[in-house]
């Protein structure tokens, strides 16, 4: 039972990181209908920058996090202002490729800027943990879960605002959005800045104890894909629940599959999120909370 609870907690903690990554994906998707393939790299960049500010810059963690998140948001903003601005009206596919370009740049910029040695993320919690009911709950993980929930609530309100509506309108039809007076650039800029912001926060938590930070940290974004799809790619709530669900599925599979379903092979937990995702999609082609396209002839 404690094993189960411990795995579940680990799964939810991991899931909260997926949720933060997934929120980054959805905020961009809701405004642009585009999957941002640079989300993982933005995350890595934010985490490295924050760590660097703490360890080499001597800033207190919270200040470093604010600066790091600000700069990462700035990267999102800059990408919108310098690149995507010129891609208005281009096919979604092209824009997706542009995010791949950003990913390539960020990925190669991290080692020269910060080195590629593993490093601590600079958070103040370190290895401290809460011991309760025979379980060990790391403070970083607890905070990660709390943060994911707080960010979810913030996003929930944001989406219901007039600005959130403008974002969805922009995603539905850019030209029509301009025609009704929605300032597309501003809307996109905010979406990208938010994506950068949550990327940085997510990155810091991915690299929290017991993990360490290294340049491959961005890979976590790949693992968040099943989460966003499972939840429904344009649903904020879906992203977070999908994140928690996938995290739990992954950890529980890792914990029990070798014992009970060993014929599925080594490390089935890596494929499990995708298997769950595909099974869900076969029943609900637009995920648990995603909206179907409203189209008719």
């Amino acid at each position: 039972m404690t094993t189960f609870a411990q795995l579940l907690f680990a799964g939810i903690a991991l899931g909260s990181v997926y949720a933060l990554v997934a929120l980054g994906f959805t905020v961009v998707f809701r405004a642009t209908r585009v999957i941002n393939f640079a989300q993982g790299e933005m995350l890595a960049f934010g985490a490295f920058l924050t760590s660097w500010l703490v360890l080499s810059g001597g800033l207190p963690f919270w200040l470093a996090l604010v600066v790091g998140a600000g700069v990462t948001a700035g990267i999102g903003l800059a990408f919108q202002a310098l690149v995507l601005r010129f891609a208005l009206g281009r096919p979604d596919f092209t824009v997706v490729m542009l995010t791949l370009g950003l990913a390539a740049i960020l990925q190669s910029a991290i080692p020269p800027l910060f080195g590629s040695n593993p490093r601590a993320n600079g958070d103040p919690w370190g290895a401290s943990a809460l011991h309760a009911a025979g379980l060990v709950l790391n403070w970083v993980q607890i905070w990660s879960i709390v943060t994911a929930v707080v960010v979810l609530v913030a996003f929930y309100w944001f989406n219901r605002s007039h600005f959130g509506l403008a974002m969805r309108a922009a995603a539905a039809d850019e030209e029509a959005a301009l025609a009704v007076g929605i300032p597309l650039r501003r809307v996109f800029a905010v979406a990208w800045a938010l994506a950068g912001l949550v990327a940085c926060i997510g990155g810091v938590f991915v690299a929290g104890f017991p993990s360490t930070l290294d340049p491959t940290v961005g890979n976590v974004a790949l693992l968040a894909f099943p989460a966003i799809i499972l939840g429904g790619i344009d649903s904020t709530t879906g992203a977070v629940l999908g994140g928690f669900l996938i995290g739990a599925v992954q950890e529980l599979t890792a914990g029990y599959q070798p014992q009970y379903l060993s014929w599925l092979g080594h490390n089935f937990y890596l494929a499990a999120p995708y298997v769950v995702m595909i099974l869900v999609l076969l029943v609900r082609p637009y995920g648990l909370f995603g909206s179907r396209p409203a189209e008719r002839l």
Partner: protein
Amino acid sequence: MTGLAVAARVGDAPPSRSLLPKDARPGWRRLWLAAIAVLGLLLPFMVNGYWLATAVFVLIAAIGALGLDVLTGRTGQISLGHAFFLGAGAYTGGVLGGRYGLSAALWIPAAAVVAGILGGLVGPTALRLRGLYLAIVTIGLVFIGQHVFVNVSYLSGGPGGEALPVPRFGRLNFATGAHVGGLFLNRDGLYYYLALVLLAGAMVYVSNVGHSRPGRAMSAVRDRELAAAVLGVDVARTKVTAFVLSSMLAGLSGALYGSFLGFVVPTQWNLTLSIQYVVMIVVGGMATVWGPVLGAAVVVGLPALLQNVSGSLPFLATGTNNHGVLTVSDASAIAYGVFLIVFLLVEPRGIVGLGRRFASLGSWFATTRQEKKADGVNTD
């Protein structure tokens, strides 16, 4: 269609001519093709080993990209699962050519067939999914595929990887090189011509299909699925057909790739590889025959070029990335990202679009202003 074809302007024209638009293409297009053919045939004698190997990788990738374009560019089904079919082709070659020692005349086509069958099996599950949902489910294919590859050692040699066979057609042994028509071709030279022939065949084939019933059905499904159905297109069948054709070409490409590489590990059939293929078709220009080829040349060739330039810089003048110094490889990767962005902003329709633009620039100067205005306007 190629980047060189100018959109033919047809007046109230003699139908016979416009019925066969190929005849309407300018003669210099043939010249171009001839020049490309000559260049393609002579290349191995013009470059060093580095560029020959790079050219082989380009040709092999182009076959796979052509396949992805059938599915994504022509049928509109975004797939990030191409790596899985590439891997399936490679391992089919490994089992049949390596384990059973069959002739390359068997295992190369068999790789295409096996991958095609897998595509046919995967296709139907994808029928209900649209757009990015499909794209991400196909990512699942990559992860599940890797899981299978890692665990089924019989296919893949397990996590440690496996050596793949070098083609052998009777006495023509690629491993040792061979005399062909009086010329000695080494291993890479032989691979080059094999890949060249297969690519050329695939291009002609895909072009033919694209210009006839199945190709049009694919485009119709891509553009408007429901309308296509009402017009008599069997949407499900068309999609599955596209999956099969696409994964057959992927299998072919994967078998050649694995064989040329000599040794493959399960983890290399990963998402990054899939993404590279998507970049190829987008950068080259989707739903065209030359697009995937040119895209492959850029995606495989450009890093090679940047890398090669870096090789000529003095050793370690660049330091190492332990010390926070920009290495040449990092710099070239950044340059690649910048190129991708700038290029797509300048020409969203890919290299082929760029070519079209030059071609239409030509015709722009050739027609008078008055004609331009009248173009397409119904004046009756």
